[in-house]
């Protein structure tokens, strides 16, 4: 299946990193911006399409073998550089998310793409747990394993309020095949089953989005749009107030069972202790 590479991520990266130092990560598909956001040091990370990627299944912005490990390298470098910095002064790490999927291919499976993505997840989680504010800014697709590796370990997730911003566990065509339903039937189900929906409003009821940002255009942002997004990023860092967890997601309207299970576990925990 051919997909068109998205340039949304790059558009937002370039505008947000205009005053920053920009460099490539371990591979050209990872861009890193280093600078300041309202006085706080920060790094912007973007996975972008690379038509010359050594791995052909990762040429449209997918998170593949190299991208997973490159993210791991970039994020863990920031963490180790600032190991002795007080949490309140640690730099913010901002993932700009526009990832169509993980890379699907034979080489990817054979060479352990799951482990490459684990490298990225591990680095992001360690950064957050060490006290770095980790913010995800969704500007395009945030799909499945690619989102787990780049963005889902953030302690705050912001999204442009735009129909091109989508979060999902699997592309529609593949999901239809695996669940033996038509794509139309999946759309129909999504209307009544919020976790199956592809739209952002449904996703937000799962407690996963902290704020929607109303921009005039997601693909040709105005200077006001950029300022607004910058203000929201700064605010998101402030709102964290040192929180290193992702537990606030459980407060979502459609996370009742997630809370109930945890309440029961906590209630039974002590009496289940080994004698």
């Amino acid at each position, binding site marked *: 299946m051919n997909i068109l590479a998205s340039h949304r991520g790059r558009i937002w990266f370039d505008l947000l990193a205009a005053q920053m130092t920009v460099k490539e990560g371990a591979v050209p598909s990872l861009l890193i911006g280093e600078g300041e956001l309202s006085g706080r040091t920060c790094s912007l990370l973007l996975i972008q399409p690379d038509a010359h990627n050594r791995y052909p299944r990762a040429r449209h912005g997918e998170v593949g073998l190299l991208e997973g490990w490159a993210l791991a390298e970039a994020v863990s470098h920031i963490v180790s550089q600032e190991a002795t910095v007080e949490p309140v002064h640690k730099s913010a790490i901002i993932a700009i998310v526009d990832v169509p999927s993980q890379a699907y291919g034979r080489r990817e499976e054979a060479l352990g793409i799951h482990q490459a*993505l684990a490298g990225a997840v591990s680095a992001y989680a360690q950064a957050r747990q060490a006290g770095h504010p980790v913010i995800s800014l969704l500007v395009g697709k945030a799909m499945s394993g690619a989102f787990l590796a780049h963005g889902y370990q953030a302690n705050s997730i912001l999204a442009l309020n735009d129909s091109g911003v989508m979060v999902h566990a699997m592309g529609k065509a593949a999901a239809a095949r695996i669940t033996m339903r038509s794509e139309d039937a999946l759309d129909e189900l999504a209307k009544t*089953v919020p976790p199956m929906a592809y739209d952002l409003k449904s996703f937000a009821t799962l407690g996963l989005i902290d704020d929607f940002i109303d921009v005039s255009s997601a693909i040709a942002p105005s200077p006001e749009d950029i300022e607004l997004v910058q203000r929201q990023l700064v605010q998101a860092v402030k709102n964290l107030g040192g929180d290193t967890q992702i537990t606030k997601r459980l407060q979502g309207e459609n996370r009742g069972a997630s809370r109930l299970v945890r309440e029961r576990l906590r209630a039974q925990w002590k009496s*289940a202790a080994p004698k």
Partner: protein
Amino acid sequence: MSNGNDPRLAISFVEQSARKRVEHILDAGSMREMVTPFDRVTSHWLEMQGIVPQFDDGVVTTRGSIDGKSVVAIAVDGSFQGGSLGEVAGAKIAGTLELAVEANQAGESIAAVLILETGGVRLQEANLGLAAIAEIQSAIVALRQFQPVVALITGPVGCFGGMSITAGLCSYLLMTREGRLGLNGPQVIEQEAGVSEYDSQDRPFIWGLTGGEQRDATGLIDDFIDSDVIKVRQKVQEYLSKGVPKAFRSEAIQSSLDRLKKVDTRSQITAEMARAILSKEASL
């Protein structure tokens, strides 16, 4: 019980139910299940879609001991919805691991054993499955600093999707010959990339790339183990006793990048080529 050295009399771990698997791993009589089937916390999302739920939602989560050492032991039931994780199943795993983290932070030592038999996200609960997996991953990264988190993949389902990433975060990863480990399920790859890239019907090809023996030969797991229940238990004991490793597999960043940047991708890869690229002996 397994009888001495006669392999014909060994009891296969692979054939045990999720609950039995946990029981076999733990010290006799020490298993205490939490949020049991009697709690009847089922998936209302499945019911909304006309699918009969299961009273444990396909996850058995317990506390117990192994060699007297306090652990949480969790098994995914591969026979219910392919071991897929929805909201309840995912919350049982994440919630248990979060409590283990809290206990360790308070000075109590509790390790973890995960028996993974899972296709990953349950597509009927799509985004909530994905969210739960992110929460499980966060808890493992926190817990593994204190105590070992040992993951077992024994088959027949294997470990796929977001949960393969979870496996890659654990302190130690053990697989049997029947186990498989991969990010994308064969059907999904065939759907996305075509049958010439990945033939989901070709079972020897799939086991050859993602089976336990290959994963061991490519250094992507710690041990290739026998599926006899006694030996599985011994291996879990052995790895728990190793404590927290000096470095985690998910931190092998530079060596992985060095190897993967040199791969010739002009021709398609074979299992043998993958071994040559990733084996511990492969020169850098």
